[in-house]
């Protein structure tokens, strides 16, 4: 796989895509949000500095999920009334794109799932159960989140959101599901809650006084 490269139309910095299917990236120097077109990169927006947080994950953090190595290449940061969380966008060594979410260091890995007919936002109720891929999920919480910022490469354009709704569903195993109502059509992500140790993460952020 040859790396695709380009130049930031705003500041001229060199932009290298680590994943051939990335649709959007953020120039790490001028924080311009860049979207790939057939020929070049177009600036579509600008992100403000992200608030300081202490997620131990960062761009280029490497890890392994179900024995597949992955590298973190992007991030969406959300906030809601009770805090914030990160959706870290990663690609595995076979080119699959997935998400590692870090909500107050409760880690979960999920992948988009196409196919199932999904409930409309207005129909959702806490306690409802759904069955996808043979697993039963119970809706545990509906979160009205506030899009806070992006970083790195994403598989879609995502930079001008404001309020978005998510529904979190849990199961009696570690499997969980998220319904994402960011777009007109809801999106389903299925995944599982994971232990920090099991991800065998490398290239983590360093915190003074902690190892």
């Amino acid at each position, binding site marked *: 796989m040859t*790396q695709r*490269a380009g130049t930031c139309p705003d500041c001229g910095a*060199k*932009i*290298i895509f680590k994943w051939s299917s990335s649709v959007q990236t953020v120039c*790490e120097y001028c924080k311009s949000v860049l979207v790939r077109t057939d020929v070049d990169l177009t600036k579509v927006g600008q992100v403000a500095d992200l*608030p*300081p*947080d*202490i*997620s*131990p994950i*960062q*761009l*280029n953090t490497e890890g392994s999920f179900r024995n597949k190595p992955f590298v973190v290449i992007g991030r969406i940061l959300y*906030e809601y*009334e*009770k*805090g*914030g969380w990160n959706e870290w966008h990663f690609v595995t060594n076979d080119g699959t794109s997935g998400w590692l979410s870090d909500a*107050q*260091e*409760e880690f979960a890995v999920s992948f988009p799932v196409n196919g199932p007919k999904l409930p409309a936002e207005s129909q959702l109720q*806490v306690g409802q159960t759904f069955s996808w891929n043979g697993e039963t999920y*119970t809706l*545990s*919480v509906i979160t009205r989140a506030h899009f806070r910022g992006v970083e*790195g490469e994403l598989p879609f354009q995502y930079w001008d959101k404001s309020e978005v709704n998510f529904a979190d569903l*849990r*199961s*009696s*195993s*570690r499997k969980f599901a998220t319904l994402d109502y960011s777009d007109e059509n809801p999106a389903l992500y299925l995944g599982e*809650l994971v232990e*920090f140790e099991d991800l065998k993460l490398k*290239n*983590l*952020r*360093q*915190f*003074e*006084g*902690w190892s």
Partner: protein
Amino acid sequence: MSSGLPPIQGAPKPQVKALNCPKCGAAIMLRALGQAISVVCASCHSILDAKDPNLAILQTFDKITSSDPPLIPLGTRGKIRGTDYEVIGFERRNIQVEGIRYFWHEYVLFNPYKGFRYLTEYQGHWNDIAICKELPIIDTRFSTPPEANYLGEMYKHFQSADANTDYVLGEFPWEVRVGEHASVTDYIHPPRVLSSERMSNEVTWSIGEYIYGKDLWSAFALPGSPPEAQGVYENEPSPFSTNIQAVWMAFAVFALGLLILMIGFEASAKKESVFHQSYLLSRGEPKGESSFVTNTFNLDGRTSSVEVTTSAGVQNDWIYVNYALINQDTGQAWDFGREVSFYSGYDSDGSWSEGKQTDSVVVPSVQPGNYYLRIEPEVDRSHAPVVYSVDVRRDVPVSAFYGIGFLALLIPAILVTWRSVSFERSRWSESDHPPSPIFNTGDN
């Protein structure tokens, strides 16, 4: 690393951030920067919005518990399950049961890689608590009170109560408020406790494990010793329950061994009759010194027991016989006295009887050799003529020993069971499902 990668954040940022309270200006340390949602100013007791760079004041509360400081001070680090954690928050909560308030304390622990963990303390009982990753399944169909299935293990409902927070200190990963209510339900499977906390429309499940104060004190290198645990706590592991099965297993094994031993000895015992003789004591006998010796008899085989049986046809009378079993070759003697008495009659309750007309005694471990008995009978001065006989049998089993052995095994087993049962009773007496009294004192 290729040149196109974004730069790794240069120098590591200090994790602790120093800020000032917008109300009183006191210094505030944010230890879990970016993860803490609320932080409490220790000097003016304002609850501040830790997400807000200006630390907006969310609530102020009256300091009511300076006399109840955290036993593990904020900022203390210790190792739990192999991971270092720092104590960053402390709250006191209470529940009210039948007009009485019960207080407990919760500590928020933080590690920037592993996240949050909690410790709770109630009257010297500690629990190490983490948020559940799997959802428990509540089963109300088959059992009342309901049970919770968590990771395939059944947890029994212990208590449901309304918890109220009345004191907070430090940082919290949620928007903490003094006065906030949560309905808390505990299910237990000692040493674990499964808890659900419902606040508005959100239910949080957590799983806790009982931890001894002394272990925490060494994990956090705290001076002194932890407060002594009072009473039995809901998920305190019973010091007996693990033993109870083992004790009864051991009992069963030993009792079986004893039985086999008994059967073996019973089967191998020869029970050989070596001497039999009857004697008549006429009226007025014996006169003065009345002892006599028997013919010698041979006790052969291995060293084993000798049974001496005295039978006498006494009716409302007694006979007392002094014996000496004497080895003719060595002179070794066993002295013993036996009484045979039998009384019977008739009164308002019907007929009665007391005593027996025979008596047996076993002399253990008698070496083989030639023996004789010296016999000295004693009777009442005014007795009727009495015939008594003496039987000697070699190598008889001693069943009384097995009874003693059996009891020696049974007593500890019963004791352990009793202690375990009373431990469980004191545990459940604090629950929503107290056990009914063992002895019914009321008559209705």
